[in-house]
């Protein structure tokens, strides 16, 4: 029989030794930087753009970036909740068009150009579409939300076209225009709106039970059911929320163009989904953060803005945007590996030090 020595007493030791104190400090700093995660990524991209084009960092332009990213950011915040439950909402873009047209009906039909009517109508119309999505998915026992939301992508666009008669409705209330294009100093109101919404989503997702349930459902839907989470109701509410975000985005789009038009928001859901995924959420559910999502939307917005500033031709923009997205995500993969590596090294240090 091979006698195996009792190693309990012996210190683990190993190659990792030397001046633990100094190394540790460097390590600690490196870890802190690397753990900034997507924010770090955004900083890198912005630095590159600033070097390529000095205009990029001007306050007005940063305001533009914020304004341009705001619609995608608002959609992405709604999409985030959906994706955390392992779902998808393909209808957001069309719902922008539908809810902005519905909101604008007050103007076209009754000539009531009032933010107090138009804004809530848009949000509610979006919520309604989301409610249909959620109910079809949950109560209709459909296997995946891809189908009901794809159907809504078509239906909402159709309804927008039918109701509007294919014609834009121009002349939004001042409140809507302010949200869409107004600024406080350099800061667009739309960015303030995004910040408020992000805070709200953060609270909903991380501070109250409902958010906890969303993560639980994404992690293990069957288990959530077993421990008494009202899975169906939570899922429906998530799609309603995503629709309401589309309705909110409709306000910004209408304000930006001073009009509601039935072709608005085409395919914006793809950008929103991309933002959420770039921000580190998982399509398989249970993972995703508000900050990551905002950063994802900003990354897309920043790249787009940079390409426009440099007057890159549209066909080259496609290539550049696609490439940049891949590089950004690839950087994040490298970053998170580095983080794991650094953690292990720190553990080694600590153990060797004690």
């Amino acid at each position: 029989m091979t006698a195996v020595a009792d190693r309990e007493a012996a210190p683990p030791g190993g190659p990792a030794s030397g001046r633990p104190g100094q190394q540790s400090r460097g390590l600690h700093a490196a870890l802190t930087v690397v753990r900034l995660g997507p924010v770090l990524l955004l900083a890198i991209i912005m630095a590159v753009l600033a070097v390529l084009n000095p205009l990029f960092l001007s306050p007005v332009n940063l305001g533009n970036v914020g304004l341009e990213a705001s619609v995608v950011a608002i959609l992405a915040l709604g999409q985030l909740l959906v994706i955390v439950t392992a779902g998808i909402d393909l209808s957001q873009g069309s719902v922008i068009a539908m809810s902005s047209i519905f909101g604008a009906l007050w103007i076209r039909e009754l000539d009531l150009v009032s933010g107090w009517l138009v804004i809530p109508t848009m949000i509610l119309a979006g919520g309604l579409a989301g409610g249909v999505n959620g109910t079809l998915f949950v109560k209709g026992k459909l296997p995946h939300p891809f189908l009901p939301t794809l159907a809504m992508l078509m239906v909402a666009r159709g309804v927008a076209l039918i109701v509007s008669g294919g014609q834009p409705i121009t002349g939004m209330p001042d409140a809507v225009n302010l949200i869409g294009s107004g600024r406080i100093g350099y800061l667009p109101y739309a960015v303030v709106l995004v910040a408020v919404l992000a805070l709200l989503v953060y609270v909903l997702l991380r501070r109250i039970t409902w958010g906890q349930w969303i993560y639980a459902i994404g992690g293990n839907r069957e288990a959530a059911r077993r421990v008494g989470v009202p899975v169906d109701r939570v899922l429906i509410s998530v799609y309603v929320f995503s629709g309401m975000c589309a309705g909110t985005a409709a306000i910004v789009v209408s304000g930006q163009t001073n009009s509601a038009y039935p072709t608005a928001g085409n395919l914006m859901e793809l950008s929103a989904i991309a933002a959420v995924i770039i921000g580190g959420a998982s399509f398989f559910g249970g993972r995703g953060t508000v900050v990551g999502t905002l950063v994802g939307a900003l990354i897309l917005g920043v790249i787009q803005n940079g390409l426009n500033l440099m007057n890159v031709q549209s066909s080259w923009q496609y290539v550049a945007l696609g490439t940049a997205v891949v590089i950004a995500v690839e950087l994040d993969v490298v970053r998170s590996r580095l983080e794991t590596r650094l953690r292990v090294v720190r553990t080694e240090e600590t153990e060797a030090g004690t």
Partner: protein
Amino acid sequence: MTTTTERAPGTVPVLEVRGAVKRFGAVTALAGVDLAVHRGEVLGLLGDNGAGKSTLIKAVTGVHQLDEGEILLDGERVAVTSPTGARNHGIEAVYQDLALFDNLDVATNLYVGQELTKPRGWRGFGWLDRKAMRRDVEERLRTLQVHLPDLKGHVGLMSGGQRQAIAVARAVAFARRVLILDEPTAALGVRETRNVLDVIRRLPEEHGISIILISHNMDHVVQVCDNAVVMRQGRVVGSTRPSPETAQDMVAMIVGATEGAATKGHQQ
């Protein structure tokens, strides 16, 4: 056998299942099962792999709906149509597949669906009281003496035994009437198993909770169960009062070696 709650013969069982039938397509998992658990009783549910034990308890907790048969709580017929319903009736279970949330940490796992909030009772919209939950969790886990290196780590990355301990801790924490344990010690170490068996013995005594224990380990059954029911191929084929002497009979009933064993167990 440690404690034997003496009962008048007419006592109404806390939980009773009558004529339970459950079919999955061509497979008949339950072919007419009757079962009764009394207050403070620890009932062993034995049987070979695929005998229908897990299916039976899933029917009781509302995960599956019975095709035929009924469930009675304290003598009243109830329709347990969802796990939420069962939880509201005070029935908790540790499922064989554990039903954990791999993406959440230990504390969160224990409280999903029963979160502590400020203000209390605001279902869904209460502010999470994470501090209270984390405090509670540590206490709970201390009872079971599981070694968890990192309470904030995701449960998905934990070892098999750590995961099972978390699932057991969760069920023990919230059971008020009936606690169902589907092979709760299968992945547990020696000491953790001992602790869980202790808990199983203590809960009925201290809180009058009834327990259904599914186990393949005769020693455990003998140690903690007041009664044992044996299933085979979706039917109850016998019952006995577990003791070191009847252990062999139980095994015979489970395996289906001798028909007589069932009767022998009874008459004992």
